[in-house]
């Protein structure tokens, strides 16, 4: 690890790290670290793909811009994590994004859930951003300097995403009767996919000190959600948890369509540059 630290001196936590910097660096992650980076990158990528739909369709123009900023942050995180992961296999971010099959994606079921109405998107945003905020807050201390550096930039950005989601949960829950009904419905549709985010497996255990143990994030996640829900007069939905498996490449039926659309052009022209 000390060796990789030495060669990664340019990438220090707090620097505005760009995917191009990671591609140009000579740090090569181990296979296990790359697998872990894939998970984080895929979550961000699939979420960005979902959020991008809202640009030109949001409830108000100001919100087009706000959701656009969030999607752009997520795509930035995805590019950094995927670029780093790709180095382990001498590939590029685009090889991973465009030429992997559905069962090779390591994202959770939560991020592939449909946008639904604005309330459902906000419910998903709330869960993702609270989870990512807790995760990146800890990842900044990772023994892997590159992961730590990516997290250092990302944590500030998802802090804002978290704030954005919380503001909207309050407004929708306490706004009108209709918005409250939709907010509750959005949370009910989202909650089955919360549990998967906090599942540990052999990879994260093996990467102790480098990866963040998902189960260790649950407590702070719950505390923040409870605080918000108390203010918004909401309750945590009591719904059965869905069977996850995204980290093993077992996805719901939504991901196939999402990837088909995302990858179609790149796959039509294999080997082309854009």
């Amino acid at each position, binding site marked *: 690890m000390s060796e990789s630290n030495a060669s990664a001196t340019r990438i220090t936590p707090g620097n505005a790290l760009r*995917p191009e910097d990671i591609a140009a660096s000579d740090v090569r992650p181990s296979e296990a670290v790359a697998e872990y980076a894939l998970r984080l990158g895929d979550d961000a*990528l699939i979420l*960005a*793909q979902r959020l*991008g*739909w809202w*640009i*030109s*369709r*949001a*409830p*108000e*123009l*100001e*919100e*087009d*811009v706000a959701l*656009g*900023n969030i*999607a*752009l942050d997520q*795509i*930035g995180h*995805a*590019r950094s994590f*995927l670029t780093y992961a790709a180095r382990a296999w001498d590939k590029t*971010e*685009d090889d991973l*994004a*465009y030429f992997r099959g559905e069962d090779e994606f390591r994202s959770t079921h939560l991020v592939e859930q449909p946008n639904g*109405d*604005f309330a459902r998107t906000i419910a998903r945003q709330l869960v993702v951003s609270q989870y990512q905020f807790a995760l990146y807050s800890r990842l900044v201390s990772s023994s892997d300097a590159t992961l730590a550096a990516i997290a250092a930039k990302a944590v500030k950005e998802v802090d804002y995403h978290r704030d954005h989601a919380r503001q909207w949960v*309050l*407004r*929708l829950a*306490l*706004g*009108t009767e*209709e*918005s409250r009904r*939709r907010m509750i419905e959005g949370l009910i549709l989202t909650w089955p996919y919360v549990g998967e985010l906090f599942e540990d497996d052999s990879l994260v255990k093996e990467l102790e000190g480098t990866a963040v143990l998902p189960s260790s994030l649950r407590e702070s996640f719950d505390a923040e959600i409870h605080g918000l829900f108390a203010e918004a007069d909401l309750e945590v939905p009591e719904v059965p948890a869905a069977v996850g498996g995204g980290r093993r490449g077992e996805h719901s039926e939504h991901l196939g369509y999402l990837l088909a*659309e*995302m990858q*179609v*052009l*790149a796959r039509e*022209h294999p*080997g*082309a*540059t*854009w």
Partner: protein
Amino acid sequence: MTTATDTPQDLTAEQEQFDRLIAEDSRIEPRDWMPEAYRKTLTRQISQHAHSEIIGMQPEANWISRAPSLKRKAILMAKVQDEAGHGLYLYSAAETLGTSRDTMTEDLIAGKARYSSIFNYPARTWADMGAIGWLVDGAAIANQVPLCRASYGPYGRAMVRICKEESFHQRQGFEILLELSNGTEAQKKMAQDAVNRWYAPSLMMFGPPDDDSPNSKQSMAWNIKRFSNDELRSRFVGMIVEQVKVLGLTLPDDQIRFNEETGKWEHGPLDWNEFKEVLAGRGPCNAQRLERRRAAHDDGAWVREAAAAYAAKQAAKRNELKEAA
């Protein structure tokens, strides 16, 4: 301090003051007196400009989900998002003339307002992202740079901000085409096809020929418009005729030439009937564009109402606390 301003005598004095400001090439600000026709012309022009930014998001948003690399996806997202921002800047400028954004939006989705006709053409391939950036944004910038000096202050200020931000839009389009042109045969073909389709519509973005543009004269007299449609079009042709060589592509017009006598660039005939047809709503995508805007507006109504209701409740709560204290 407000004095009666509607006696004929005062109106004349106001008109003189307005005329003097225009003659001095100074700026008119929102609370200044201005002729009704000036206010109307500006409201129409700025709101149309704003609508164009908002509707113009759609052809490009159409490709965000399919962008062929993550870098291009991020760039395209940022660009389409910028357009929402530009629409907002322009609506704000138009609002200072006394028409609310809500009213302008209602006009747009009711099909009563116009927007740039070019956005009623479909973006069929990825190369269209290049051609739109290079030609459509290029034409828009050529149009907009002189508008930074428009006599109406808020419009000029909005345009300054927009022009600054748009400088990347045209370049990213050009680079998309450059990359395609240097790519595979299929990519190069895609690029040429897009340039062929967007060339004429982009020239028509400057508006009808001068002798068929009845409002231009007045707009120029008011220092809203600084150059005529044909003048700007000719300059634009001069720019792209050189740029297309760098791209290794061609323009679908073999009549482009520099007229030594007039010092102007000339181009082949444009199909103004098609222009009028599309303007009148009979373009390939008019109905689709409006439907999408209407759907976003209608689907968002409950969200806007919820936020307003929440704000009202919070304000009431604050007042209660204040009274109790």
